[in-house]
């Protein structure tokens, strides 16, 4: 009887680990750690200048979505169609686009290439599974960069950060600090986008950055008047205000999620406003 139970447990575990789209080697080690990814992103940025989007209007909007988890592509297609047919200036995909598999990256690349308007990508933890960073970098390049939106009067700053490893890392934090110190005053609004949600407003089994790092960044965002921080990872929408900074978490885009959605950011002279959208 005892042996039967052991065999059952063994088979169940084998089936579970085999069926999961997760790279469990990541529990004890990570290939392509944050310092290496950041270094490669910086290399990429040197030959690919930061993008500026110009608009003739003072008011504009953009979309931020996260956790596409391709495989399934129904919601992603709908998101791309909505974006293409709208007057949103940019679409930012804040990580967990795939689960690290090259074939899924290829499916996503085909979909993305069909979109003519700017699409900005950041890695999430799932994108790094199965050595996924190598494919991400080969196909899309940097995961740490910024882009700007210039209206006739003032420009706005959007900073995209790589938090797929659960930490921003020493070099990336220094890069962010220098960027804010040297450039923040040149822009009206500043938005920071990355995958792993910084604030833990509900109890989940996923991991956020460590408290020391979160506290440091909250302080940095206050000092440099960062208006908005947008994350994914948690799959469930949330909005919190701490000081003068708004912290948003977007719903997941993934097909299997009942309340799948994304967030639209509307920008005008009075500030940044957000609206959660559902598919």
């Amino acid at each position, binding site marked *: 009887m005892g042996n039967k139970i052991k065999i059952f447990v063994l088979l169940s575990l084998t089936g579970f680990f085999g069926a999961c789209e*997760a*790279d*469990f080697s*990541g*529990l*004890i*080690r*990570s290939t392509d*750690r*944050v310092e290496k990814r950041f270094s490669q992103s910086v290399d990429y940025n040197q030959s690919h200048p930061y993008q500026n989007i110009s608009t003739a209007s003072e008011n504009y909007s953009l979309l931020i979505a996260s956790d596409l988890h391709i495989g399934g592509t129904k919601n992603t297609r709908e998101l791309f169609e909505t974006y293409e047919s709208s007057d949103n200036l940019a679409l930012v995909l804040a990580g967990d686009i795939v689960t690290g598999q090259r074939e899924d990256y290829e499916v996503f690349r085909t979909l993305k290439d069909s979109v003519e308007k700017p699409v900005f990508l950041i890695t999430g*933890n799932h994108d*790094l*599974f199965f050595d996924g960073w190598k494919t991400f970098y080969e196909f899309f390049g940097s995961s740490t960069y910024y882009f700007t939106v210039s209206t006739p009067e003032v420009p706005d700053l959007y900073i995209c950060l790589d938090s*797929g*490893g*659960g*930490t*921003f*890392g*020493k070099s990336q*934090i*220094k890069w962010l600090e220098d960027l804010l110190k040297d450039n923040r005053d040149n822009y009206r609004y500043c938005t920071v986008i990355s995958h*792993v949600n910084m*604030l*833990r*407003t*509900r*109890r989940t*089994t*996923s*991991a*956020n*950055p*460590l*408290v*020391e*790092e979160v*506290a*440091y960044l*909250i*302080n940095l965002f*206050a*000092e440099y*008047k960062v208006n908005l921080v947008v994350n994914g*990872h948690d799959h469930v929408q949330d909005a*919190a*205000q*701490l*000081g*003068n900074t708004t912290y948003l978490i977007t719903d997941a885009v993934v097909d299997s999620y009942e309340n799948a959605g994304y967030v639209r950011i509307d920008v005008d002279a009075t500030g940044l406003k957000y609206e959660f959208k559902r598919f």
Partner: protein
Amino acid sequence: MKIKYVFFLYFLICSFCVTTVQAQFKIDVFAGVSSNPVDNPPLITIGHSPQFEYHNFFVSYAMDVNLNNRDKKIINAFSTGLGYKFAVKNHPLKTSLFYCYKPVSNILNVNNAGLKIDYTVRKWYFALGNNFNFYKFNNNAAEIYGITDNDVLVEAANLMYSVKYHLREIGSDWNLFINLTNFELFIIEQETNPMLDLGFTYKRRENSPKFFADLWYQTAGFNNIRVNYFGVFFRTGVSWEIK
């Protein structure tokens, strides 16, 4: 400024307790160094932690001050706790309430409050608890950055755990231990960010002070199945118990 008065009052009460009751007394004096993406260059601290015990009640506090990186803060952390000790099957079970205050800069601090239960059996130490982490902007933030509204954010309840195994019986003259946990004296990480602690203790005689040294290894992203090195910190000191 108000917080200084609260600390002063607290020390006064503690001192009063010591002089008026025949309390058991223990004090830890320690120094530490931590290195991670935000303690850069590494942060060097010194601290002390007195603990008073009377019958089955105990009260303690701990304070750590920075020796370097003092431009933004001088106090690294302060924590305090009070509790009651039971005996379960002749082994001590401690229940306690605690509060930890950790300045981040001259405008922001991190606070933790919670409760925990500790149980010690021969070579094993277990702890289980729950805490609330909250970020608080202080008056400087209002003056310098105009942060007057939404100056506090309370995060979701967080599980605390510790499983520590000693190589020899607890109380032995020397010992080695390994500890899997998400908290220590001044840091409480999210439950899904475990830390590994390797330590050593030594005392020459039964009543002599105990030397201790702990090396902590911090990881990020464990439950994201993408574990990354985050940082390390080392703490060493002396623990002196007067019975």
